[in-house]
Structures are given as C-alpha cells and as structure tokens.
C-alpha cells in the first residue's frame, strides 16, 4: 500500500451550493504535500471532510487502506489522522503542559481512568515535556494558554498534534500569525518528522511551500485545478492567472 490517504469522488454540497466537487486525491506515504488555492476555494472544507468534522455528501475516503467515510472524527484520530486548526483552537484555561499531556493520555487510552492522578503517570508527563522542549516552548509550559502570545499558541497547536503520534498529519495554515523568523523553526521541526508520516498542509506563504513541499495541489472553486511539483505549478500560466498577484511565486 503506497497511499496513506486517498479520496474518491469526494463531494459536499449545502443545498444547491456545491463547495467540494468530485475530488480524487491521493497522498502517498511519507509525502510532503501542499494544498494551495485562492480564498474560498474550499481548502479548509476539504480538510474538514477528511477529518469527519463535516459529513460528506458523496464519495469515499480511505486512510491507510481502510474506508473511513462513515467514521466519527475521534475514530479517525485513533487511526492516525490528526489535524491542526487554522484559527487556534485550544483549551484557554489549561496550560500547554496540561494540553499536551491530555493529548498523550488520550493516545495511550488513559482518559477513561479516574482513580490515579495524572501527575503519577510519569511516562505521559515526561513525553509531554519532551515535546514541549522539542518545540522550544517548555519555558512557558505552566502558563494558561490564553495568556500566551499568538505565535506561541500556534506552536502549542502543533505540539498537541504531535503528541497524538499521527500517521497522516493535516496542517491548516500552520504558520499563520507567526512572525516569519519563527515559522521556519516550526517547519524545521515538522521536516524532521519521521519519513513514514505523511504530511498535507494548507499554506498561503509560497516560500514555505517551495521549501518544504515535494508536491503541490491547487484547489479552485472546490475542484482540483492543477497538480505537480512546486516548480511545475509555479511555471503554470493558468495557476498564475488564478492567483493574480494574491501571493508571490518565486
């Protein structure tokens, strides 16, 4: 099996409005795949369909060989499909350490357990600390998330996702809101992920797309417009026309 994630004829409509049209998409194992497109193209909707947050109107989704089209979001996560959110969606009153520990505990199946203190689960807490250190936010690990600057909150988003040991990781504009000096560090961490994790990320910053993606899909009006290597896409005149100066293409 070479495909980590694939969709067949995936579509979504709200009444008469078709937001996702018949998408056939394949993400190979170990991919570093970027999804780009103008605003309103349906990129986040596509992600929501993959994770099950939004139920599909038609088509199939397969994860690591299994059909997951009918599964709830939490079931998909347990099978290794993890996402981050475009607008930071965390736990405002909890600290980063608590948030990441929570994710680790959930992965280890510990959250139904009510009779031992979280702090006594050394393995989980240590792992959470290690992730925070890896992303260089261990020093703010004990502050409520709502008190952190936005850039650091974005990093906590990724930390929580990594804690779930994903097989397929969907990043919705991970660098959005992070000053450009720090975003490279974030992507460096992501590029150091094991090769068998497959990555699909939505991005607007074309520099990052060029640096980290080996393949690019362009989504326009809910359908796949073009697909290829970053160089092919950059050279594609139709793609340039669609974007029409929305972002720089190297």
């Amino acid at each position, binding site marked *: 099996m070479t495909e980590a994630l694939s969709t067949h004829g995936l579509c979504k409509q709200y009444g008469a409005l078709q937001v996702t049209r018949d998408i056939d998409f394949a993400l190979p194992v170990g991919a570093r795949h970027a999804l780009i497109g103008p605003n309103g193209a349906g990129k986040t909707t596509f992600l929501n369909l993959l994770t099950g947050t939004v139920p599909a109107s038609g088509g199939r989704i397969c994860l690591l060989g299994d059909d997951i089209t009918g599964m709830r*979001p939490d079931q998909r*996560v347990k099978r290794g499909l993890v996402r981050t959110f475009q607008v930071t969606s965390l*736990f405002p009153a909890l600290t980063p350490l608590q*948030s990441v520990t929570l994710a680790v505990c959930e992965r280890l199946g510990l959250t139904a*357990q009510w009779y*031992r203190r979280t*702090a006594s*689960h050394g393995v989980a807490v240590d792992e959470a600390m290690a992730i925070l250190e890896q992303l260089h936010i261990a020093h703010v690990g004990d502050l409520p998330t709502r008190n952190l600057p936005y850039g650091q909150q974005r990093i906590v988003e990724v930390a929580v996702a990594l804690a779930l040991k994903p097989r397929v990781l969907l990043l919705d504009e991970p660098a959005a809101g992070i000053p450009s000096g720090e975003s490279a560090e974030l992507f460096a961490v992501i590029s150091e992920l094991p090769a068998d994790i497959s990555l699909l990320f939505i991005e607007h910053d074309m520099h990052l797309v060029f640096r980290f993606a080996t393949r690019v899909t362009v989504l326009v009006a809910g359908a796949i417009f073009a697909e290829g290597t970053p160089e092919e896409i950059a050279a594609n005149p139709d793609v340039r026309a669609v974007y029409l100066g929305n972002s720089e293409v190297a």
Partner: protein
Amino acid sequence: MTATNASKISDWLGRRWKEIVLWALTPVAVQLLAPEYFVLASHIAAIALLVLSLDLLIGYAGVLSLGHALFFGLGAYTAGLLATNGWGEPLSGLLAGGLIAGAVGFLTSFVVVRVQHLAQLMVTLGLGLLVFEAANRMRWLTGGDDGLHGMEVWPLLGVFEFDFFGQTAFWYAFTVLALCFVVITRIIDSPFGLALEGMRENPLRMAAIGTPTASRLRQAYVFAAFFAGIAGALLAQTTQFVGLETLSFHLSAEVLIMLVLGGAGHRYGGLIGALVFMLARDWFSGIDAQYWQFGLGAVMVLVVLFSPGGVLGAQRWIAARLAFNPRRDA
C-alpha cells in the same frame, strides 16, 4: 505495607497536610464549640456533597443541568424506603442510594448528552420535573406531600445510635463528606478529570484529539449522579425523613446558586458556597423571608456582574493581581 505504598502515603501527607488538618479540626470544633448546631451541620454536609457532585458536571464537564436534585431525591427515597421497610443498616443504605441514583444517571445520560445548549438545559429540567411529578402522584410509595415517615435507622457499625442530639449523625455525615471529597478530588486530578476540563474548554478540539466525547460526558454524568445519590441518602438517614423537596426544581436551582457563588471548577468552591448559603439562609429566614429572597437575588446579580468566578474566582483574581502565583494543583 511495601516501600512504595509508604512513600506514596508520606508523599500525600506532605502535599496535603494543611488540608488534612483543616478537615480534622472542623468537626472537632463543631463538637466542642457548637454542639447545638449538630442538626444544621449534618444538613450542610449533605448539601455540600450534593453541590460537589454538581461541580463535576458544571465546573468540570461543562454540562448545564437544572435538574440535579433528581438524583439527590432518588438517593434519599432509596435509603428512606429501605429504612421504612425493615432494612435500616446505614452504610448499605447509603451505598444503595448512590447506586440507584447512578443507575438512573446512566440511563438518562444517553438522553442528556445527545443535546446541547438550551435543549440540554430543558431536558435536564424536564427530567427533574417528570420525576418530581411522578413521586408526587405515587403517594402509596413516597408519601406524597406528607413525605416518608417512620424511618428506622440502625446504629452505625452496630454501636453508634442515631439520637435526637444528632452527634452520631453529624460525625457520620461529615466523615462521608470527607471520604467523598477525597474520591472526587482524585477524579478531578486524574486523566479523566483533565479530559473533562478539555471538554468544558473546547469540545471540538477534544474530538480532534480522539476523545469519544459523548462517552466521557456520560461517565461524568454517572459520577455526578452517584455522589448526589449518596448525599440524598445521607440526608434521609440523618434526619430520618424524606420529603418531596429533595426532588424539587427549587433545590436544583439552590444548589446551582451555591455552586456558582462559591466558585465552580475550583475544588473548594462548592463547599464554601454551600456553607455560606446555608448559614446565611438559616440566619435571614429567621428575620424575614422577603429580605432573604431579595438579598439572595441581589447577591446573585452582583456576583455575576462583578465576580463571575464566585468567591474563589475573586480570590484567585486578587491573588494574581498581587502577583502571588496561584498553585495549580496537579
């Protein structure tokens, strides 16, 4: 006792010795200084446990319930019916009350968790009213308006009799409250408790990290129902009477008020709220019922406007402003 067990206990003592001293001293203080208030103190202890159980739902899981008295009343009537029908053993009656309430909590949790927001509020309210009406009509079982009389509670552990002075009742109630508090604290500190807080903060994110949120909420609901049932049985056994008010919306609302005034989602908030509320009501109602109602309403309005975290919320706000680092119990 192995080395690890001994170190665990000394570890626990080291962390919590201040609290342990407080808990140990309180009943002794009541015994020595205010033995004429035993009856009131037992009542407060039972209600405090009820408020604590509601905190699990509201302060930690984020479920808005206007019908929590349902489980309190179920526990009370269970213990009451056992004692009026020949089985007056207190500890088993207590457990029975908790288990029956927990079982009903399990059944109703499927209904409550399926809906949200206003519908959830109305479903919990409706379930509470349903059971109240049913109990009201089933006079042959519950005694209706007159309540359940003739409970014969056997001596505790075969030795301590429940008498009019209420000393046994008080120590019994306080001990049960303390033990339940330890268990509930453990639940809050556990990974399950952390997951509940996650669901309160951001249910969508919880689904995104793989939590079966409906299942966890149902589990929280059952815990809350169980402890509420224990509280109800406790009240029934210490007063040897069960009335319809144990199932009433009035009680559900009062408990909610106590919790919010004390501070929901803070360990001791429910206890403080229950203590202050019950003492204040006892004092004011003696003067003028109208003043009590007006004053209570005014306090609620002011708390929501200026101190939404209740008493404990305000305390933390002040402490943060004064740059004391509030210790986050982990």
